[in-house]
């Protein structure tokens, strides 16, 4: 199994997964530069 965090990058996908999996969302706004 691949190591590391399984990041979502799409907000709506994260909302859908949150509903389906019953988990809260951890949202990291990072510095893109």
């Amino acid at each position, binding site marked *: 199994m691949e*190591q*590391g*965090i*399984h*990041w*979502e*990058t799409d*907000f709506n996908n*994260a*909302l859908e*997964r*949150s*509903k389906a*999996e019953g*988990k*809260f*969302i*951890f*949202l*990291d*706004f*990072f*510095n*893109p530069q």
Partner: protein
Amino acid sequence: MDAVTYPNEKVYDFMNKYVISLRVPADQEPLSTDFNVQWTPALLILDHNGQEHHRTVGFMTGEELIASILLGTGNAYFNNSQFQEALACYDSIINQHPDSDSVQEAIFQTGVSRYKSTNDPIPLKEAYQKLNDEYPGSQWAKRAYPYRLIQ
């Protein structure tokens, strides 16, 4: 975060198990404006409706991040009146991350959650006593100060 915190095995195991991890650039609109992002890293806990329940700004170690996520998810449950689920999160902070910066708020919230789920005010006084004994003069001991008078 990328160099130290996220590569930590304890961190990614915890995050992959307990939350949906979402990462977006701080300048990505409309999210940046919607969540009023002014500095990075801005680390938020959201529910499935996109409602924010917890936020920190700035670097965190792995241990602090895990405790902070537990606090945020606990507060999200608390805000939804799911007090037993909230208490499980706060208990994890108190018992497994006792040296974290999140523990004082977890003690405070334990008292409030126990009160709201039972209508027994004694847990509020117990929270004050624990905060005053272990963290005298702290922000959360001060916030709990009125509870010392509960009989």
